[in-house]
């Protein structure tokens, strides 16, 4: 997928002036946030589950090789295959080969962020295979030819009118007089379009929320049931999953499932939770003839043992972005790649590099709400700060910021000099504030005064006044 993360600032500006987008984003607070809060309030053991979830994933990450191999041997025992792929290119080729092996013309797809990450749809199209997204949100953005702007609500930036417009444009068999006013009409139309495609597809591709080592199963959660149709009806079922999706046991998956939907949508459980245990067996009534797990590294193993290892606990629930005030201001597309919001601000530079994605870990106020709601207790602000430190030590911080920081720390380390300069600063800024007590325009601080006034200082520093008041003579000067 093409990235525009380096252009975050301009992307954000565009997003802030996009009236329709802003309207869509304003629904985050009463929507996702309230629903999660209600769901969490109803489960007294939620905080304990978070600890357990974190511990399970930490254990996996410390023993990843062991669990991955165990997973593979159980997939094979179930009659399936695991394909180990180091990067996007290997993963795309592997999937294409599977498609070729069944002479595939079309593939249906369940929702998968890692498929977005490896740019699967474009690749399949280039090689003559038509991918059809079957999650409604994904289907809409596929028609609109744009990337998802959210990891569980990919079309959150689109309004109903835009959906109707996309349907009318792309569904050429749709009679112009057929009403599409109600949401029900729209979902009916999507269902009408998708139903025959499920039956016609040669291959079904899904992601995975979990890979269970002890059973060799893969797990998806959906609310539409599209994943089940996708994976059951094709000749082959391909599961694309990144390697940190592994959990040791069914019990571990259950524990994290209890966290997942509550954190994501505020549901106790998703409508469908589907466990896939390999290809169709002799006694099965239906199912795919072959079962493939395409296991993708794509930069993740390089995160092990670094400051960013904790990020691999992420279960893609989206709670962090649902509660992020920056995401709420600019939406997901501004982040410029697959993963938006706080998790994207850590994962994106980890996967595509700090040169491309340097803005993302900087564009945070460190308000800490993401960490507060993260079911896996990922210290997102801390890792963003580490990326800022990486930029700083590699001399990639802008010269303006560097100069400002250098000046600040020069004075902050020299208390006497600091006191003299703040005395001067207080007088000058106070004078600039005049009788109004605030400064409307300050050339060296235009980032501040372009959007708000700067309240003026009172005129003298605390240290100065404290000394004058006679307080400071009791031997506390050092």
């Amino acid at each position, binding site marked *: 997928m093409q990235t525009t993360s380096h252009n975050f600032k301009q992307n*954000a*500006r565009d997003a*802030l002036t996009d009236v329709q987008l802003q309207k869509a984003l304003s629904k985050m607070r009463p929507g996702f946030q309230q629903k999660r809060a209600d769901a969490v309030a109803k489960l007294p053991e939620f905080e304990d589950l978070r600890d357990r979830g974190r511990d399970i994933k930490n254990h996996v990450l410390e023993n990843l090789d062991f669990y991955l191999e165990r997973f593979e041997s159980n997939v094979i025992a179930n009659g399936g295959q695991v394909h180990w792929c180091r990067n996007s290119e290997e993963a795309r080729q592997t999937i294409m080969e599977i498609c070729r092996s069944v002479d595939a013309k079309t593939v249906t797809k369940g929702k998968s962020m890692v498929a977005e990450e490896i740019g699967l749809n474009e690749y399949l199209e280039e090689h003559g295979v038509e991918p059809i997204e079957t999650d409604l949100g994904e289907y809409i953005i596929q028609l609109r030819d744009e990337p998802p702007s959210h990891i569980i609500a990919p079309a959150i930036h689109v309004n109903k009118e835009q959906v109707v417009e996309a349907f009318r444009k792309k569904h050429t068999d749709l009679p112009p007089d057929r009403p599409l006013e109600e949401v029900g009409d729209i979902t009916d139309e999507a269902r009408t379009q998708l139903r025959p495609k499920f039956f016609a597809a040669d291959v079904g591709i899904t992601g995975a929320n979990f890979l269970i080592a002890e059973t060799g199963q893969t797990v998806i959660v959906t609310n539409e049931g599209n994943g089940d149709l996708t994976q059951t009806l094709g000749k082959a079922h391909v599961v694309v999953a990144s390697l940190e999706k592994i959990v040791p046991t069914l019990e571990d998956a259950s524990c994290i499932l209890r966290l997942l939907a509550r954190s994501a949508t505020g549901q106790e459980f998703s409508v469908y939770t589907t466990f896939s245990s390999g290809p169709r067996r002799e006694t099965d009534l239906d199912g795919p003839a072959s079962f493939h797990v395409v296991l993708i590294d794509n930069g993740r193993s390089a995160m092990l043992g670094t400051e960013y290892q904790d990020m691999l606990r992420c279960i893609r629930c989206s709670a962090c972005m649902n509660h992020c*005030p*920056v995401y709420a*201001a*600019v939406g997901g597309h501004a982040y410029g790649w697959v993963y938006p919001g706080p998790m994207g601000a850590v994962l994106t530079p980890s996967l595509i590099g700090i040169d491309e994605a340097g803005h993302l870990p900087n*564009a945070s*106020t*460190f*308000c*800490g*709400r993401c*960490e*507060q709601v993260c079911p896996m207790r990922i210290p997102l602000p801390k890792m963003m*700060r*580490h*990326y*800022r430190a*990486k930029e*700083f030590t590699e001399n990639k*911080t802008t010269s303006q910021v560097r100069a400002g*920081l*250098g000046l*600040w*720390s020069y*004075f*902050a*380390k020299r*208390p006497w000099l*600091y006191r003299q300069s703040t005395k001067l*600063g*207080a007088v000058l*800024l106070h004078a600039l*504030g005049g009788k*109004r*007590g*605030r400064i*409307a325009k300050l050339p060296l601080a235009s980032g*501040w005064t*372009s*959007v*708000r*006034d*700067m*309240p*003026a*200082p*009172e005129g003298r*520093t*605390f*240290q100065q*006044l*404290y*000394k004058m008041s006679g*307080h*400071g003579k*009791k031997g*506390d000067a*050092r």
Partner: protein
Amino acid sequence: MSASENARPRVGLFVTCLVDLFRPSVGFATLSLLEKAGCEVVVPEAQTCCGQPTFNSGDFKDSRDIAANVIEAFEGFDYVVAPSGSCAGMIREHYPELFEDDPAMAMRAQHLAKRTYELTSFLVDIMGVESTGAAFDGTVTYHDSCSGLRELEIKTQPRKLLAAVDGTSIKEMPGAEICCGFGGTFCVKYPEISDKMVTQKAAEIVESGADYLLAGDLGCLLNMGGKLKRLGARTEIRHVAEVLAGMTDQPSIGEGER
């Protein structure tokens, strides 16, 4: 150590760089509140800044130097108190982290971290203050600054003390826990995003109908105050310490001489 074990605890006042430069009256209000609560208060002259601007910009080396200066200046007190959840959070949560690879300094950092408090939580949780005995006429809305709220769990303490102020009533705004868009250098690095956040915050402050906006962190107050004044809102802005200490003679934040 509880207050009863030591009748007159010795407190080092960490003024914070913003209070020192912008609003010394908050420093004096803090001093007065601490003294009234029965503390002996000392203001080390060698203090400058807690190091948060450099720390959050990824300049860990300079942050360590600045932190070392703070650790040095504030050694030997029973407690260190700051009229800011953000600076207290920096010292409590992040100083030990900064010196992870330097055991000797890490020990000193932890020692300081353990006895450092934000003002309202110190008064309520440590000194057991129920009322500051102040009077202040007006309705106030309280913004929960992020670091204080999420790093130090400060939520009830300022409200408890405000409820005891004679003549003051609290009108909560809906998004009191949502970031105002200050974020230190964030607000100047990404002014448009910051503006979007603070504009929404300002609207909710005005909608609350309160006469005053209060908070425990001057950074957030300068941001929200600057926006409210730019928008021409009539809301007045003060640090919670001013109201709790009954020291409200100074013009409010962003206002000139009356």
